[in-house]
């Protein structure tokens, strides 16, 4: 298959119109020395029937087990309407809405998405999306630097380890220093934070619920950050928690970033996901990425377009707030449809996450060592002696019991991060208790 419609005859006619005799003549600008003389070493092409078979065999090589893994990628219920809408090819085969008259559909959908994110986070402005939670957090390093003209970031060690790594990558390239603040009882150690923060601290970054599932004292940390006039960045890795907890905007966040995968996007082996970014109103000129705004047309009718583009690379080039161009628009559309469909019921979904995970916590607490307190959202840390063996046993009985923490925190040997969302049944929860017990 090659999806090329023109016939050999049409190609001949076109060559004649161009005034060349063969296709080769169209490539004569490419120096002979670098033109390929032999075909590429790739497998032979195949028919749709064969391709479907081959792909289905590959999918079957993966094992679909009952999973209690979270750690930044959450398995949630996705209402059927979500996939039906994002499968409409008017949406998924379109480009970035540069021609607003022909793109009112996605522009309005993103405008509504921005509104929903503002309401969930308690912020004034949300952008049209970033690549994922980690890169969204990393891009805030640059905002912190621009706003404060300072060069140091303080980042809590309870932030997702891969998010911290991403922040360090971006900060290194920008010659910024990153200082990590340790945790105490599973939460950011505020005493240490106070001792680390100084006049050169551009921003303080925390995650809540944090990587261990614990809800941080966002307000108190915000106060510490603001005392030194540092930008306070709150990362929300499990977006479902926003439906239940106090919005970070109400607790003093200057910037809220997060991972929106939980809103209608499949786990998909880590991507594509949805980077959320929302800011206080006076940060609007520093926010990276697309923004959809409302305006009117020449007839006075309401319409939407990409606005404040003077921040962006295609206008400002090297002076842009970011280099981002493509984003995750279709994932934002999925989130919008998901949030419209679940609406106020999202709080009930969030509560189910709470109940299911706390049931596990309470039951496990009877026999196992639980590391931290019960003020977590939907995941927690349990220490199991001989974890590796226990993990293997669970896998053999069809359950992935969680995410082992030692690779991220060597000090947390034999510790398992266990997550239960609304998708877990009591039967599955009890089976997990049985294999861990």
């Amino acid at each position, binding site marked *: 298959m090659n999806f090329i419609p023109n016939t050999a005859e049409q190609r001949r006619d076109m060559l004649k119109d161009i005034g060349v005799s063969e296709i080769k003549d169209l490539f004569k600008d490419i120096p002979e020395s*670098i033109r390929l003389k032999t075909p590429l070493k790739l497998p032979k092409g195949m028919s749709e029937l064969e391709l479907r078979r081959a792909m289905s065999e590959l999918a079957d090589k993966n094992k679909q087990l009952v999973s209690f893994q979270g750690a930044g990628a959450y398995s949630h219920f996705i209402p059927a309407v979500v996939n039906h809408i994002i499968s409409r090819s008017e949406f998924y085969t379109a480009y970035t809405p540069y021609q607003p008259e*022909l793109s009112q559909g996605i522009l309005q959908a993103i405008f509504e998405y921005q509104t929903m994110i503002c309401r969930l986070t308690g912020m004034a402005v949300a952008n049209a999306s970033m690549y994922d939670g980690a890169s969204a957090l990393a891009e805030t390093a640059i905002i912190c630097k621009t706003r404060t003209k300072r060069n140091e970031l303080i980042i809590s060690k309870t932030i997702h380890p891969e998010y911290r790594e991403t922040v360090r990558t971006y900060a290194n390239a920008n010659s910024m220093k990153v200082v990590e603040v340790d945790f105490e009882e599973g939460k950011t150690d505020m005493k240490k934070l106070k001792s680390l923060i100084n006049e050169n601290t551009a921003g303080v970054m925390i995650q809540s619920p944090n990587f261990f599932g614990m809800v941080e004292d966002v307000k108190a940390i915000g106060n510490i950050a603001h005392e030194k006039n540092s930008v306070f960045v709150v990362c929300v890795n499990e977006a479902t928690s926003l439906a239940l907890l106090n919005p970070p905007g109400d607790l003093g966040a200057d910037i809220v970033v997060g991972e929106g995968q939980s809103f209608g996007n499949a786990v998909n082996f880590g991507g594509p996901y949805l980077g959320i970014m929302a800011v206080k109103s006076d940060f609007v000129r520093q926010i990276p990425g697309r923004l959809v705004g409302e305006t009117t047309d020449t007839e006075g009718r309401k319409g939407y377009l990409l606005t404040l583009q003077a921040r962006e690379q295609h206008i400002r080039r090297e002076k842009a707030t970011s280099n981002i161009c493509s984003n995750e628009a279709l994932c934002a559309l999925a989130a919008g449809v998901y949030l419209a469909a679940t609406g106020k019921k999202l709080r009930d979904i969030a509560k189910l996450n709470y109940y299911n995970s706390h049931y596990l916590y309470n039951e496990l607490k009877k026999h196992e060592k639980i590391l931290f307190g019960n003020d977590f959202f939907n995941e927690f840390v349990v220490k199991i002696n001989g974890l590796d063996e226990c993990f293997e046993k669970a896998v053999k009985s069809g359950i992935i019991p969680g995410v082992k923490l030692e690779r991220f925190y060597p000090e947390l040997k034999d510790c398992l991060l266990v997550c239960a969302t609304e998708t877990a049944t009591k039967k599955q929860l009890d089976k997990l208790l049985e294999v861990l017990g």
Partner: protein
Amino acid sequence: MKTIFEISSSGRTAVEIPEPEVPEEEIVLEQRDELNLPEVSEIDVIRHYTALSRRNFGVDNGFYPLGSCTMKYNPKINEDVSRFSGFTTMHPYSPEKLVQGNLRIMYELQEYLKEILGMDAVTLQPAAGAHGELTGVMIIKAYFESRGEKRNKMLVADSAHGTNPASVSLCGFELEEVKSTSMGELDLDDLKNKMSKDVAGLMLTNPNTLGLFDRNVVKIAEILHKNGSLLYCDGANMNANTGIAKPGDIGYDVIHVNLHKTFSTPHGCGGPGSGPVGVKKHLADFLPAPMVAKSREEYVLDYRIRKSIGRMKAFYGNFNVMVKAYAYIRAIGAEGIRAVAENAVLNANYMRVKLMKHYHLQYNRICQHEFVLSDEGMPNHVTTLDIAKRLLDYGFHPPTIYFPLIIHGAIMIEPNETESKETMDSFIDTMIGIREEAEKNPDLVKKAPLTTPVTRLDGVQAARNPKLCYPC
């Protein structure tokens, strides 16, 4: 059209949530007061978003010759297979032995891209083209740092995509622009003048944003390498050369490609994309971790990248996009990959010769996958914007306009290989018709579009008084 908030009605819902099966433990966390989200029924959701979709335009709706964006047809089989639950439900932290299918797809995609690009190693982690650029420029920076060389300058062609200069400054490099010649190629004299021991590298798009293959590219690579500098390829235009020439053979040290352009994955109204980066051997140690490796018959995630720049995002990249690109390469195979470039270039040249009789074409040469017209000489002050807007009335998505910046009033047309001669002829006739309208009835063209759900929008008002949210 009403917003979802305006059709909300208290007490409605589109989902039902099951009762908890476990005890309703008292919630010890501080809770928010209200959750101000819409209350709509399932049919409301479907009708609302279906109505929105009808106010949108994708490749499936019609011709989309958006230059530099390669808006090719997205084969439906790729969508279908990417939705197999065996792919979509896999957790990124599942033990490797449970996700061998996914890891094999990633490993083989890395290998295919290495072969197509002529590179020694490929990372699939970047989520988009610009993300790939950032990765590539960071790699260049890390390479010189590891050698103890202080090179603080990056060169970019004046015809470059805006993301190039933005990526350069995001990495703390100083930017210098290199001019283009009257033939639309990089000015070698200007390049030589700007070479110094401060220059880390040059970012070059080839074929360039004028759709022209820079005939001096081998020489350019030599000039850079002689100075100890590196050559970066913005591979956004790779659709012109797949199977014809390998960037690695040309002398590029780093390249990013866009799976959502060359490899047929849909653009989703702006994303998700995927921007793999390929490098030559001397830069392989700097790639983001992890890579997918093959160890005996098992596929594994390899975190041992010695001098890695670090992560560019969480997990492994936009996996589901990779599945579609992988399926595409498997479907078309080696012969197909070459046919893609041949037909993309054939189509572009056909449109070029047909349209140059009616519109100004600054660089009259055989082009690659795209070419750039302009509004120079249009009667009655009809502009590029007017032409683009009038195309909307005829059911076409307009070309890229006002880019590249070095051509005043640029109209950049990229037809790609999946379009038929009939479709192109109809677009050509329409463009000729608009030229006639511009002469005989310019007001019609200047008022366009007249048939779309909204007419031209007031961008000044939108920027002066930004309304970025529906009010509470």
